[in-house]
């Protein structure tokens, strides 16, 4: 019983972080119909940016701030170089151009940091709640994920710029006609999506060791989470992440752990086939 409780709690906490990563992916898709295949490597980059600031003596949680700022500008640059030109082209083009960005990031990352694992070594408290053991890092990561998500919601629904992002996502031409500079908004959206991916990467780095290749796993998880929640739907992505975490947690006690991935991907394909707009409704 305790095991199941622990598993579910673990799943929930990590699921929030998956959800944050997925929001980054789904936001970009929702606004500009681009499936960002550089998502994974950007997550990994977030891990290493955190590592750099941490190495420079900043506390890991304080480092989240510069990581976020860096992530935003990095995203804007990626948009301007690799996405802007092909944004209205067929889906293959944006898939491949973001993939090539991924190759470049991983290539440079490998040259800089090799492919060996890195760690953020800082003091972590352990709490025991009714026999369930949880570390402060996990709690903080989950809380941070929730806070960032709330922040994003505040931005999207309460600020003019955020509403403009939604307007551009909804109808780029009409937005342009209303005086909204759509290219700027797209660049900003890509920046925000990238920022979220990097933040989730940074939070993951406070929990687990990472390499420049680590992003791949979380990219796939982001796909699963955002498809579960309906591609293009940020709330859905967060819920998708939580569901994913809960699936991981709740099946673990009953099967060999290594089957978890099989279950995840089978669910992924089935959802795509039978609920292409996800469980919570996404863009068609």
């Amino acid at each position, binding site marked *: 019983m305790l095991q199941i409780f622990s598993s579910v709690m673990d799943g929930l906490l990590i699921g929030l972080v998956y959800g944050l990563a997925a929001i980054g992916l789904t936001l970009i898709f929702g606004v500009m119909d681009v499936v960002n295949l550089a998502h994974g490597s950007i997550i990994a980059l977030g891990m290493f940016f955190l590592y750099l600031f941490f190495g420079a003596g900043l506390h890991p949680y304080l480092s989240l701030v510069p990581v976020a700022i860096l992530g935003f500008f990095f995203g804007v640059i990626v948009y301007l170089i690799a996405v802007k030109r092909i944004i209205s082209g067929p889906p293959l083009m944006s898939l491949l151009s973001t993939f090539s960005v991924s190759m470049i990031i991983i290539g440079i990352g490998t040259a800089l940091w090799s492919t060996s694992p890195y760690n953020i070594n800082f003091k972590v408290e352990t709490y025991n709640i009714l026999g369930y053991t949880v570390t402060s890092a996990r709690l903080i990561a989950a809380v941070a994920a929730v806070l960032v998500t709330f922040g994003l919601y505040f931005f999207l629904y309460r600020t003019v710029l955020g*509403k403009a992002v*939604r*307007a551009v996502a909804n*109808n780029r*031409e009409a937005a*342009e*006609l*209303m*005086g909204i500079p*759509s290219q700027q908004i797209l660049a900003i959206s890509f920046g925000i999506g990238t920022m979220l991916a990097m933040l989730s990467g940074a939070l993951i780095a406070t929990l687990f060791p990472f390499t420049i290749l680590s992003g791949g796993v979380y990219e796939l998880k982001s796909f699963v989470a955002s498809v579960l929640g309906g591609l293009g739907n940020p709330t859905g992505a967060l819920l998708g992440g939580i569901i994913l975490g809960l699936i991981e947690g709740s099946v673990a006690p009953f099967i060999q752990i290594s089957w978890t991935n099989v279950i995840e991907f089978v669910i992924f394909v089935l959802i795509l086939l039978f609920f292409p707009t996800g469980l919570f409704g996404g863009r068609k």
Partner: protein
Amino acid sequence: MSALLELNGVETGYGEVQVLWGVSMAVEQGRMTTLVGANGAGKTTTMRAIMGIVHPWKGAVRFQGEDVTRLSAHDKAQMGLVLVPEGRQLFSDLTVEENLEMGAYSPRARKSLDENMRKVYGFFPRLEERKRQKAGTLSGGEQQMLAVGRGLMADPVVLMIDELSLGLAPVLAQSLFATLKRLKDAGLTIFLVEQNVHLALALSDYAYVLAEGRVKIEGPSHEVARNEEVREAYLGI
């Protein structure tokens, strides 16, 4: 007096297909100008060329005496050249109020956001009733009201409307036109594309008849309305 909005020999099209062949027009301050013509004559393309969604290949667009041919659509919108596009093009996932707010995106319009919002709600009380509703869930008539309202929120110097009554029941069309007339009477410059020729010609001050991408006839609306040639070319009976 030079016109508020002027087109000089505008040529444009899509890909290699030319649609407009040297279109020249002028929209005078305070007037309602209308553009009529058959389907495919190039009315919508004219509107899109003015806004810069389709780039003019040749010719110039002047707004308030300034050459704006090369400016992007959002720049022109911020200057007060506002188009209510064909097919409404609402932000269907945003609420009614958010749609209106987006209409006032430009810094110029944002200053008088509250005031304009009150005005729009005054014109279209239905919109206020539904301000929390998503635009996509509105009925056709309400959507057209919102489209016009959103255009008004931009505090337009010239309001261009592409197909106001398209797909609307006559009663609704009538009330929209009544609103338009009131706006005109209040001094707004309006440039209208309309398939309902009778209405368009009856309400407007000046008219252009477009065919095959060229201006065939122009003149004060009541004169154009009496022109048999127009009836023949457009109505076909």
